[in-house]
């Protein structure tokens, strides 16, 4: 059991019609890491994340979470933040909290309410009356209020102002336990660089680099952001 990887992806391929989106992805992830999934727009980051979250069906290959195929058990331990607003707009924040409490045993309601207060979000407000940025903050709070094994955050900083980004990163850092891992997909590398343990570079549907963040920085004698810019220079 101790050798079991939190996330293991084997020979994963995804195509739409004849168009290959992901090609032969092999990846394994242990507990206690913050991993940056980095790549240009359209590189396949979101597709990979959607596959892990059962939102897409693989063309071939296998995804295992704690040794089990994607399903009810994997969904109990993965806390996922998509890049879009996905909550029913007719609901109030308090109703969404109730929904998360109903479905996720690991959801910490008190923590959610505290985080919402920190972000000046009204628990009784309807989501329709919130801006897109506010809705994204609510979603982040919900996701980070779970005691999950794996957090998958797809562009968590995309729609928020720079002032809130630091708060969000601190929220991520201070709200997951040491046995959990976090996968953050973003192209705002400079903002998240300080918190990364590992990086995965993805380009044209293939993983072109997976490395420990510090080792890579020492080897290349530059920041991850600079390495990324060099690698993906147009």
């Amino acid at each position, binding site marked *: 059991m101790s050798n079991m990887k939190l996330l293991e992806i084997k020979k994963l391929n995804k195509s739409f019609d004849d168009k290959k989106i992901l090609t032969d992805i092999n990846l394994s992830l242990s507990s206690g890491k913050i991993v940056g999934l980095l790549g240009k727009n359209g590189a396949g980051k979101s597709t990979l994340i959607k596959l892990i979250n059962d939102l897409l069906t693989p063309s071939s290959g296998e995804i295992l979470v704690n040794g089990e195929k994607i399903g009810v058990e994997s*969904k109990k331990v993965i806390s996922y933040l998509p890049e879009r607003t996905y909550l029913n707009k007719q609901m109030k924040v308090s109703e969404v909290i109730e929904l998360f409490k*109903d479905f996720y045993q690991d959801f910490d309601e008190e923590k959610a309410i505290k985080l919402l207060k920190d972000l000046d979000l009204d628990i009784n407000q309807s989501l329709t009356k919130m801006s897109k940025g506010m809705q994204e903050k609510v979603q982040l709070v919900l996701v980070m209020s779970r005691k999950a094994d794996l957090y998958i955050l797809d562009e968590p900083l995309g729609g928020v102002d720079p002032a809130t980004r630091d708060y969000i990163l601190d929220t991520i850092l201070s709200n997951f336990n040491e046995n959990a891992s976090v996968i953050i997909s973003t192209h705002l590398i400079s903002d998240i660089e300080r918190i990364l343990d590992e990086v995965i570079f993805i380009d044209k549907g293939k993983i072109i680099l997976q490395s420990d963040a510090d080792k890579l920085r020492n080897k290349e004698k530059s920041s991850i952001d600079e390495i990324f810019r060099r690698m993906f220079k147009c």
Partner: protein
Amino acid sequence: MLGKVLKYDLKYMIKNMRVFYILSIFFAITTRILFEVEQSVIINIIGQISVGCMIAMLANILINTMTRSWVRFSSSLYKDESYLTHTLPVTKNDIYNSKLIQTFLFLFIGFVVILISLFITYYSKENWQVITNIVKNITIGLNMNTIFFVTMFLIVVFLEIFNAIQCGFYGIILGNRKNNKKIGYSVLFGFILYLVSQTIVLSLIFVYGLFDSSVMGLFQTETVSIDANAFKILLVLTSLLYVIIIYCMSMLCKRTLNKGVNVE
């Protein structure tokens, strides 16, 4: 987990449908009051408008139950909300069963509200007498129990609409397996499935007719009078076939869903 999924599906439908239920009853009561008060030209005009509004609400209840069920199904399985639905720790079977139960319940509630509205608007001893006489004439002619006839007729209509809604569900599932023009394919597949299900019902009744001459009489255009026994069999057989088709299609829907989804 089915109960939890159902709780949120029902909440959604109640939020969207309650306005039609309330307005339907409201216009039924208004019409009734206007019928009761002393008639004048103005009261008569308002009364006719009120009747029109009530009938529009009744139609809305049926149309909205169908369209809202499809919209809810599509949005929670394939649109933005699907990012939550598919990441909840519930099986695809539970998600589908919840949608089916929700549809069944709201179609039933819709039927009840329509009957209540009609009752409020038109009930009087004279009207009741007229209706019961009409139904009695039909049932005596068909040698059938009145309650049996009315119940079976309502069940057939209910199952017919329920089947149409589920054809829409399966159409949405199949349409979303395509990579392009998903809405167009969903409508097309739903329509084809509905035609296929109707054809199956009709074909199986025809096959039954091969062994029962009274039922076969229904297919022969030269037969003018309807055989009482054949009509009874037709009602029961149609209901039974719809139940079987609805069950089989729900199994197919779940099987296809369990193969995986590709959300936008």
